[in-house]
């Protein structure tokens, strides 16, 4: 397991943002890149590789990776539906959206569908409270959700996965 040359250049560019000897500051940005490159979650060998790149101990990587909610410590589906469940979203119907996804996909919070396509990951406030209910899907937000929009989204993703 190794980053491509292009990613390694990015890694070096990130490390250069910090003073000499403070390369550990690049840890969280590197974990984001690693998670994206190596299958959507952080396996131990992946974290060890990041430790090696930054010349720090593997334990320093594990303790950080487990602290932050964006890093997955287990394999996840191809599409992770991170639906916000905090108060302001709840006021605008996030409970119904989460229930609908559970029923439609036959999974509980934190689970992945047997075909490996979808993981439901309830999230805490994502800074989109005015456009609630909402979910994060990869890099972007899907906002002002309705049951119909969720159905259409899931169909689109299933179709996209086939191609």
């Amino acid at each position, binding site marked *: 397991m190794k980053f491509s040359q292009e990613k390694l250049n990015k890694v070096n560019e990130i490390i250069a*943002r910090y003073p000499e000897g403070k390369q550990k500051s690049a840890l969280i940005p590197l974990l984001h890149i690693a998670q994206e490159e190596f299958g959507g979650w952080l396996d131990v060998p992946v974290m060890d590789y990041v430790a090696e790149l930054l010349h720090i101990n593997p334990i320093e990587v594990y303790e950080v990776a487990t602290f932050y909610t*964006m890093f997955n410590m287990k394999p996840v589906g191809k599409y992770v539906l991170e639906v916000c469940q905090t108060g302001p979203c709840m006021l605008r119907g996030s409970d119904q959206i989460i229930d609908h996804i559970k029923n439609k996909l036959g999974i509980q919070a934190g689970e992945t569908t047997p075909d490996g396509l979808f993981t439901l990951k309830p999230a*805490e406030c994502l800074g989109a409270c005015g456009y609630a209910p909402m979910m994060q899907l990869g890099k972007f937000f899907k906002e002002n959700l309705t049951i119909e929009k969720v159905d259409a989204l899931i169909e689109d993703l299933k179709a996209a996965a086939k191609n």
Partner: protein
Amino acid sequence: MAVKLLLDKAHIEGIRYYDTWRKNGGYTAVEKALKMTPDEIVEEVKKSGLRGRGGAGFPTGMKWSFLAKPEGVPRHLVCNADESEPGTFKDRYLMEFIPHLLIEGLIISSFALGSSATYIYIRGEYAWIPDILEEAIAEAKANGWLGKNILGTGFDCEIYVQRGGGAYICGEETALIESLEGKRGNPRLKPPFPAVQGLWMRPTVVNNVETLAAVVPIINMGGEEYGKIGVGRSTGTKLISACGNINKPGVYEINFDLSVEEFIYSDEYCGGIPNGKRLKACIPGGSSVPIVPANLLFKTAKGETRYMNYESLSDGGFATGTMLGSGGFIVLDEDQCVVRHTMSLAHFYNHESCGQCSPCREGTGWMYKILKNIEYGKGKMSDIDLLWDIQRRIEGNTICPLGDAAAWPVAAAIRHFRDEFEWHVLNPEESQTRNYGIAHYADPREVVA
């Protein structure tokens, strides 16, 4: 007519890009500021009366003047773009749509504080915004506003964007600094304060996105003029992100003499409550500030009109008032259940506690469990007193203010809505099928429906 200082250009097509920004008066503040001395800039910010827009409302100029300046030690400015307080989404708006306003503010502030490496720490979930910011930074650099020897002043400055990994606590400034150093977001014990030992133990100022953006109009118009806008110690303008049960959720720039009633009901702002429903309660400053029932929202306990500013919203203290906080304005209509909403927030704080102090780590978990029991019809009357007791033991007994932030919403909910908690306990079955309604704290306005 309301004065706009931050969003005045937000409607202009293409304002995200440098050329449009510049054509519309962009970077004049940097030109002006770099002809001043750093101390003169700090003086203007002091005169403006600007208070931190991240939630605490601490005077920015004063904070800047605390920055230690030991010989030969680099200093840093860090922009807090972690924005994770439920109800708050205003910084996102600034960064997404008018990024150059923030970049301008950062250049001026970096110059004033002597920061040659300035970091924007942005919550990781805003994954597409770093691209927008980095594009704006590159444009600024290409036009000579960043880099080496800016405008021939001898001042060098780079701005870097760093994404977090998903943790509300990293909005707390010392947790943010730890995270920026590549560690878990555990808040530090203070003192030492960041102004003396912050990022990499160097003197550091951490300011909110909106605070740093406000430096631009302050320089353009002068601190004194800026200070004349507003009411009392609430100067300038404030971004409010409005959400919950309103017709027009979104980000609004308000003047501090706007009444809360007008903010909720005027078509210029929230546009009232959908379906002619009545107002039940409001959390005007992000989830950490006390919830207030409708009857204390438009008028203070003294019967005076309540306005959207620091002093008026906190009038009456925690007994009958609340706080402006981050400006995350959450509206609850008559169909909402205060117990359920409080339970949801308790879950949030329990989830987000970093776990360093036992009152916060354990207390937030207990509060969530007890609230869950009450909400699901398994509560006892004594649970309500127990909740009160737990929140009181958390408040003030922790390393960082997350403990207080978790305690206050629970305290305020019990203080104002105790009858609703009791009703849940006394009616375990009925409370599973309908909500309590609005009782005696009824909306003081006429019902529109």
